[in-house]
């Protein structure tokens, strides 16, 4: 029987063992007494002598008991029970502490779960740590993962250090099933070895294999688990069904497991089709061409080679086989061709393609730091609450110390209480985080490139939360625990020395409050700057009115109509949409404001005075009649486009004020001509107000508007000005368009306001989150100041009683308390403001039309903080002023 096993079996029957020991000791006593009695002592004396001889029985039992008990564990259980009982007894304190921690831990965990989902989680594939990503490093910018098909073939056929190179390319397709109408879906071309190399097997049916990725192979598709749910309603017989992708029929051969969502974290994939289907779907295939860089490449390093060897091999192949080959194809390769500076970069791809990491890594880390500050404030808060409580428990602790309790044992017990608080905070915090991370994701989902992430808590997130709980428990628990036991027990018990230890504790708690106020000031200041910055962006004069405008995009190129047919169908649709009740104006255009894209062209401008100027990089927009009415952009001179212009009239153009001023000065722009060198020329018929084009932050660029129905292409975006909320007529407008132009698919529907908001998603996120965190910090600071003031008043009850008894007025007492609170706050404000001004320089680049030393923000922060101090002092000061001197003095 091994020692540990015996110990465990003794522990199981520990009651019996203790009973045994007691009986054994009784026997010992009886024997000893009998012996002494025989030695001549009286029976009574003999019993006492035996008892004395035995010594400290409790100690003996304790020593023996340690043989069958796990002392630490049992004491821990004891501490936990005791701590829980104490916390239950003071619900106010417990609530304040647990909530502080829950908010702090919750904020951090929420942000961490986003970081985890976007940056840390491994792909659910075989040996993800052996995956690498191939990137072209252009030497003067961000490396990008995009390669031509010939480059992919070269890598695939020659690399020896890898077990396979896989290629993929995402695209939007117009997808119909046998019983649902066509709709847009995100598909991904993949090479035939994509699934085998990743080691992903189908949840149902099979995946795409090398035999599917051949010219003339039967077109097949594999559905993602999510798409199977959304689009096919979990149809169990989906394998074998038809999927019509851009008018070509594919056979569904399988469904991927729910965990696999592609290699590009953050981007949703609905279905996968073989790369060999690309020539079928694209009018002019990119496969034979070295120009288009469209494939994302991943490779799996094989077990015989290291990461470094694979990198070296691929880099050599890239220089010789890819770049040189591509330059060799050109008739006259320039010696300074930028491709000569390109190098191959290789990155680990355990967590998938890197573009999401590059895009969101930094903002997420900044947010983690901000939420970290919130957690520190929360810890300071709880430490302060514990300090205040420690004074209440001074007698209890002193009693325990003087009865022989080891200080280390008492510190352990106090720390257990802190840990209990931290654990409760963590549990609640994880719940907050779960809700919060969904809310956070909303910010990313409304940006221009929506991010789709699985932010559910996993082992890593829970480990993070647990580590936070332990760290915070130590952080806020250690100092108070140490302070509490550092008092000499006698002094505390008998009241002398109280002054000394109190002063120390008060200094400590004041320092903590000062730090808390300072941190709050920093957060308030940053939050204020971000809010002001957002407000500045929001109040930019855009030159159009984004309220009440609905945008509906269509894709006429998907229809089989001629360009003329597309144009007629859309014009018919526009006429019908304009007739919908509630529609004030409607128009078609190629590009809508703040969409983030557009056209820039160079034109020649010939003024009415005959002077010709070259207009470089003019922004061009093709718009239909009524566009300016729809956008509420004023026409300052001349007229709007008309439908008569469209019917074979002379080519016309409208310019904005900036263009008119830049190129025609104070002369009249109307009647001037604009045109491409040797091409069509347009007569300028109107001048409209400036409007933002690509971005809200830019100054309105010189913009040339051309008639959308006088061009080669087709204006495909409906803009509809509505009375009331724009989405209210979304369904009616969509149906009207579908009826008038049944073959032209509707791609997206959104309000112009949403489109504008999407362009400032980062600003909105920064303002909302920093504002939220600042508010959180402020609440915590208020609680902190209140706690210290309340404690201070309670401690000075006697003194205040004497003051009142000696004739101090209520108002004087109140002023005394308030002055103390303000003094406490003022120090924190001063320190925080200095730090905030230093820190704010770092965020200057994130601010719009705002200096980081914005006086308005500084003033607001100071006022808010002072008001906070006053508010926190209100209740304690009232309590102090209303003290009954008789009662107060009796207590003392």
């Amino acid at each position, binding site marked *: 029987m091994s020692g540990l096993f015996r110990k465990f079996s*003794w522990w199981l029957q520990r009651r019996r063992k203790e009973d045994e*020991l007691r009986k*054994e000791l009784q026997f010992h006593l009886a024997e000893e007494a009998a012996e002494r009695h025989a030695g001549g002592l009286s029976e009574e004396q003999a019993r006492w002598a035996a008892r004395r001889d035995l010594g400290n029985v409790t100690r003996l039992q304790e*020593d023996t008991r340690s043989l069958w008990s796990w002392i630490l564990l049992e004491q821990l259980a004891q501490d936990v029970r005791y701590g829980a009982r104490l916390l239950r007894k003071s619900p106010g304190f417990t609530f304040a502490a647990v909530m502080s921690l829950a908010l702090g831990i919750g904020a951090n965990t929420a942000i961490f779960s986003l970081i985890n989902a976007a940056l840390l989680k491994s792909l659910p594939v075989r040996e993800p740590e052996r995956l690498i990503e191939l990137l072209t490093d252009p030497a003067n910018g961000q490396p990008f993962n995009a390669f031509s098909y010939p480059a992919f073939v070269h890598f695939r056929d020659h690399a020896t250090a890898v077990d396979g190179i896989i290629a993929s390319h995402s695209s939007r397709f117009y997808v119909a099933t046998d019983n649902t109408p066509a709709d847009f879906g995100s598909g991904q071309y993949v090479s035939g070895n994509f699934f085998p190399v990743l080691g992903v097997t189908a949840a149902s049916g099979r995946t795409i294999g090398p035999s599917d990725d051949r010219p003339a192979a039967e077109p097949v598709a594999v559905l993602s688990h999510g798409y199977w749910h959304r689009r096919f309603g979990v149809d169990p017989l989906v394998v074998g069904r038809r999927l019509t992708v851009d008018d070509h029929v594919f056979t569904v051969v399988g469904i991927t497991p729910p965990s696999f969502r592609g290699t590009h974290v953050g981007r949703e994939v609905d279905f996968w089709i073989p790369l060999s289907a690309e020539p079928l779907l694209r009018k002019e295939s990119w496969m034979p061409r070295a120009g288009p860089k469209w494939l994302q490449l991943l490779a799996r390093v094989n077990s015989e080679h290291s990461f470094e060897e694979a990198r070296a091999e691929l880099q050599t192949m890239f220089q010789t086989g890819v770049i040189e080959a591509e330059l060799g194809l050109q008739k006259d390769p320039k010696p300074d061709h930028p491709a000569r500076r390109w190098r191959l970069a290789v990155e680990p791809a355990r967590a998938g393609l890197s573009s999401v990491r590059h895009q969101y890594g930094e903002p997420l880390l900044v947010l983690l730091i901000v939420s970290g500050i919130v957690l520190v404030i929360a810890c300071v808060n709880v430490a302060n609450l514990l300090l205040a409580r420690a004074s209440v428990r001074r007698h209890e602790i002193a009693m325990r110390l003087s009865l022989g309790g080891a200080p280390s044992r008492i510190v352990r017990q106090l720390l257990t209480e802190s840990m209990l608080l931290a654990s409760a905070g963590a549990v609640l915090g994880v719940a907050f985080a779960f809700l919060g991370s969904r809310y956070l994701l909303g910010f990313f989902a409304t940006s221009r490139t929506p991010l789709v992430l699985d932010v559910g808590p996993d082992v890593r997130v829970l480990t993070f939360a647990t580590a936070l709980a332990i760290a915070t428990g130590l952080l806020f628990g250690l100092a108070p625990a140490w302070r509490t036991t550092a008092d000499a027990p006698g002094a505390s018990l008998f009241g002398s020395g109280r002054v000394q230890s109190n002063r120390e504790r008060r200094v400590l708690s004041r320092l903590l409050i000062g730090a808390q106020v300072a941190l709050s000031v920093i957060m308030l200041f940053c939050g204020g700057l971000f809010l002001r910055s957002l407000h500045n962006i929001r109040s930019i004069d855009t030159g159009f009115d984004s309220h009440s405008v609905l945008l509906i995009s269509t894709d006429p190129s998907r229809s089989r109509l001629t360009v003329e047919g597309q144009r007629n169908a859309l014009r018919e649709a526009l006429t019908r949409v304009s007739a919908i009740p509630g529609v004030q104006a409607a128009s078609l255009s190629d590009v809508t404001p703040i969409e983030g894209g557009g056209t820039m062209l160079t034109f020649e401008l010939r003024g009415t005075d005959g002077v010709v100027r070259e207009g470089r990089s003019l922004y061009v927009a093709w718009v239909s009649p009524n566009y300016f009415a729809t956008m509420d952009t004023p026409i300052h001179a001349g007229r709007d486009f008309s439908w008569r212009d469209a019917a074979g009239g002379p080519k016309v153009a409208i310019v904005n004020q900036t263009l008119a001023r830049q190129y025609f000065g104070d002369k009249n722009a109307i009647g001037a001509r604009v045109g491409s060198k040797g091409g069509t020329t347009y007569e300028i018929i109107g001048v409209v107000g400036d409007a933002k084009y690509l971005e809200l932050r830019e100054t309105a660029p010189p913009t040339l508007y051309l008639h959308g129905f006088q061009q080669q292409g087709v204006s495909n975006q409906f803009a509809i000005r509505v009375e009331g909320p724009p989405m209210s007529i979304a369904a009616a407008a969509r149906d009207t368009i579908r009826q008038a132009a049944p073959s032209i698919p509707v791609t997206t529907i959104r309000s112009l306001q949403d489109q504008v908001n999407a362009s400032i998603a980062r600003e909105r996120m920064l303002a909302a989150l920093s504002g939220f965190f600042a508010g959180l910090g402020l609440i915590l600071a208020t609680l902190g100041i209140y706690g210290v003031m309340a404690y201070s008043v309670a401690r000075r009850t006697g003194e205040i009683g004497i003051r009142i008894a000696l004739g101090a007025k209520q108002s004087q007492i109140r002023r005394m308390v308030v002055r103390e609170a303000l003094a406490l706050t003022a120090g924190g404000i001063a320190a925080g403001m200095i730090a905030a001004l230093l820190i704010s320089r770092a965020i200057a680049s994130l601010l719009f039309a705002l200096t980081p030393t914005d006086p308005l923000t500084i003033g607001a922060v100071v006022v808010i903080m002072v008001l906070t101090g006053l508010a926190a002092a209100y209740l304690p000061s009232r309590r102090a002023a209303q003290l009954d001197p008789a009662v107060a003095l009796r207590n003392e």
Partner: protein
Amino acid sequence: MPEKPSPRVELLRGTLDLLIMRTLLPGPSHGHAIAKHIQRTSEDLLQVETGSLYPALYRLEAKGWIAASWELSDKGKRARYYRITPAGRKQLVAEQSKWDAFARAMGLLLRPAE
């Protein structure tokens, strides 16, 4: 106040285990008897503290060197009797030779002339 010289010797650390096992070598005995035996055999020079005797007994039992059972004492009372196990005998031999070597070394160093 100068300390009175005590006729008794303090037990050296670790020697109590050795003494208990040696006491049990002739046959089983209960705790009180073990203490008395050590005391008497050492001509009252060694006093076994009850506070350390019982924890030591349980410790030795936990290690498997001695075993215990409830039996009737010579006076007809139920007492916990300890007996040495084969593992305990082995341990005793090892400890004893270690002790012998230590005692010899101490003797040589403290009384080099003799």
